C-alpha cells in the first residue's frame, strides 16, 4: 500500500515546482529588462526626439503621446465608470436588468484588445471622421478600461457599511446627498485604486491604438487632440520588429521605460490599497 505521507510530500513538491515555474521567469524578465535597459537611461534618451529612423536619439514624443492617451482615456472612462458603479451598488435591484449589466461588463472585459482597435477604427476614425487621432485612441482605450473602473469602484462602494447609509437617511437626508457626502468619500481610496489600475492598463496596451492613433515615426509633439501621436508600446513594437538594426540599448531602454511606467502605477495602487486597509475604521 502507498504511504499517504510520502504521496503528500511528492504532491507538495510538485505544487511548489509549479509555483516556481511561474514566479522565477517573472523575476528573470524584470531583471533582464532593468539590467540591459538601465545603461540606455539618460536625460537625453528621455527628452530627445528619435533620430536617424529611430536608431538614435530619444523617445520623448512616445512618452508624451502615451501620457496624452492615458489622460484622455481616464477623462472619458472615470465619470461614466464611477456613475455606473453608483448605479450598480446603490440603485439597481436584483433583477434581469442587473444580470444583463453584469454580463455586459464581463464581456466588455473579455473582448480581445485588437477587436477594440477594430471598433475604434470603425466608429471613431471612419464613422465620426475623427481620423487617426489622439481623440479616437483615447476614446477606444477609455471604453476598454471601463470594466476595470466599474468593477473596482463598485467593490469600493459596496464595502462602505450599510449602517452609514441608514444613519444618514434616518436624519432626513436624501438618497443622492447620502451617496454624495457619505458613501463616495468613504469609497475614494478604492475608486482611486481602480482608476490607477485602469491607467496602467491603458498605458501598456498596443492593439487598440494600432489603427486609431499610433504613428509609426513622428519626430514632433502633437498640437491638438486631432493629431496622430507616437505611443510607447507601439514604439517598442516598431523598433523590435519593424525597423532593422536598432541598437539593442534603445530597445531595452524603451521596454524599461514602458515597464517602469506601468509597474509604478500598479505600485501606487497597491500602496493605496494597503494603507486604506490599515486605516479602515469599520
Amino acid at each position, binding site marked *: 500500500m502507498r504511504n499517504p505521507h510520502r504521496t503528500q510530500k511528492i504532491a507538495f513538491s*510538485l505544487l511548489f515546482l509549479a509555483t516556481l515555474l511561474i514566479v522565477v521567469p517573472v523575476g528573470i524578465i524584470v531583471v533582464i529588462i532593468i539590467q540591459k535597459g538601465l545603461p540606455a537611461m539618460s536625460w537625453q534618451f528621455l527628452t530627445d526626439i528619435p533620430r536617424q529612423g529611430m536608431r538614435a536619439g530619444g523617445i520623448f514624443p512616445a512618452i508624451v503621446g502615451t501620457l496624452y492617451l492615458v489622460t484622455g482615456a481616464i477623462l472619458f472612462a472615470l465619470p461614466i465608470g464611477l456613475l455606473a458603479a453608483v448605479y450598480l451598488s446603490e440603485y439597481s435591484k436584483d433583477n434581469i436588468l442587473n444580470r444583463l449589466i453584469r454580463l455586459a461588463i464581463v464581456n466588455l472585459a473579455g473582448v480581445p484588445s485588437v477587436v477594440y482597435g477594430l471598433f475604434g477604427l470603425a466608429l471613431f476614425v471612419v464613422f465620426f471622421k475623427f481620423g487617426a487621432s489622439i481623440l479616437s485612441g483615447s476614446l477606444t482605450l477609455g471604453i476598454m478600461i471601463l470594466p476595470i473602473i466599474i468593477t473596482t469602484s463598485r467593490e469600493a462602494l459596496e464595502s462602505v457599511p450599510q449602517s452609514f447609509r441608514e444613519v444618514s437617511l434616518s436624519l432626513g437626508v436624501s438618497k443622492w446627498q447620502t451617496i454624495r457626502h457619505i458613501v463616495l468619500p468613504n469609497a475614494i481610496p478604492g475608486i482611486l485604486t481602480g482608476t490607477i489600475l485602469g491607467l496602467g492598463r491603458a498605458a501598456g496596451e498596443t492593439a487598440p491604438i494600432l489603427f486609431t492613433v499610433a504613428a509609426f515615426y513622428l519626430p514632433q509633439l502633437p498640437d491638438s487632440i486631432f493629431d496622430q501621436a507616437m505611443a510607447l508600446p507601439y514604439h517598442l513594437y516598431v523598433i523590435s520588429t519593424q525597423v532593422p538594426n536598432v541598437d539593442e540599448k534603445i530597445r531595452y531602454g524603451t521596454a524599461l521605460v514602458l515597464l517602469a511606467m506601468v509597474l509604478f502605477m500598479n505600485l501606487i495602487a497597491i500602496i493605496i490599497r494597503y494603507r486604506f486597509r490599515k486605516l479602515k475604521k469599520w
Partner: protein
Amino acid sequence: MRKTKEFIIEKLILVCGLASIFFVVLIFLFLLKEGLALFNIVGPLKFLFGKSWYPISEPPQLGILPLILGSLLVTFGAAIISIPIGIGCAIYIAEIAPLKIKEVLKAGIELLAAIPSVVLGFIGIVTLVPLVKNVFHLPTGLTALSGSIMLAFMAMPTIVSIAEDALYSVPKNYKEGAFALGATHWQTIWRVMLPAASSGIVAAVMLGIGRVIGETMAVMMITGNAAVIPNSILAPVRTLTATIAAEMGEAVVGSEHYFALFAIGIVLFVISFAINATADLFLHKRQ
C-alpha cells in the same frame, strides 16, 4: 429646485449604469456593419473553411481556416502548459504557502499580469525565440511553440487568481471534516477541496483560455506570421488576432480585405462572448 437636480442626477446615473450594455451592443453592431459586407462577396462557409488566405492577390482569396487552425494550435499548446501549472500554483498559494510567502507570491502574479503584452513579446524575441531555435535545431525560432509558451504565461495570472479565489471560498468545515476523519492535507486537497471548488476552477481555466485567444501583440511578434495551415507545433503560424493587427494598417477602408478583417473581428467577438458568458455562469453557480 433640489428635487429637479436630484431627478436629473439619478437619471444620469441610470444612463451610465446602462453604458456597458450600450457599448457591448455598439461594438457588435459596428463589427457587423463593416464585416457583414464581406458575405456579399464571399459566402460565410467559404470564408470560415477556405484553405487559403491571400488577401492582396487578384482576385483575393479570403479563407480563414489557416488562421483559425493557427489560433487553435497556439491556444491548445498554451492550455496544456498553463492549466496544470496554473492550478498547481493556485493550490500552493491557497493551501500550502505560509502567510508571508503567500503575499510575495500573489504580488509576483499581479506583477506578471501587469506587464504589457508588447514587453513580453519583446522579451520573447530576445530570449525564448533563440532558445526554441537552438533546442529543436530549426531554421527559425518564430514558431507556434514559442507562442504557446509565451501565451501560457499570459494566461497564468488569470488562472491562478480565479482558481485561488475558488479554493479560498470552499467552506472551512469541509476541510475540518476531512481532517477529523484522519485524511492527510494532500488527501483533503485532492478529494475534498478540488471537487468542491471545481466550478470556479473550470471558470478560471475558461477565462485563461479566453485571454489566450484574444491576445494579440506578443503572439504577433513571436509566432512567425505564416498564414498557412500549420503541420506541426514547430512551424510558424498566424493567429486570427495577429492577422487583424498586422494587416489592418495596409487595408484600404471599404476594400474586400478591410471587410474580411472585420469579419475576423466578428468571429473573435463571438468566441470571446461565448467563453465569458459560460465562465460567468460557472462562477455564478458557485455563489
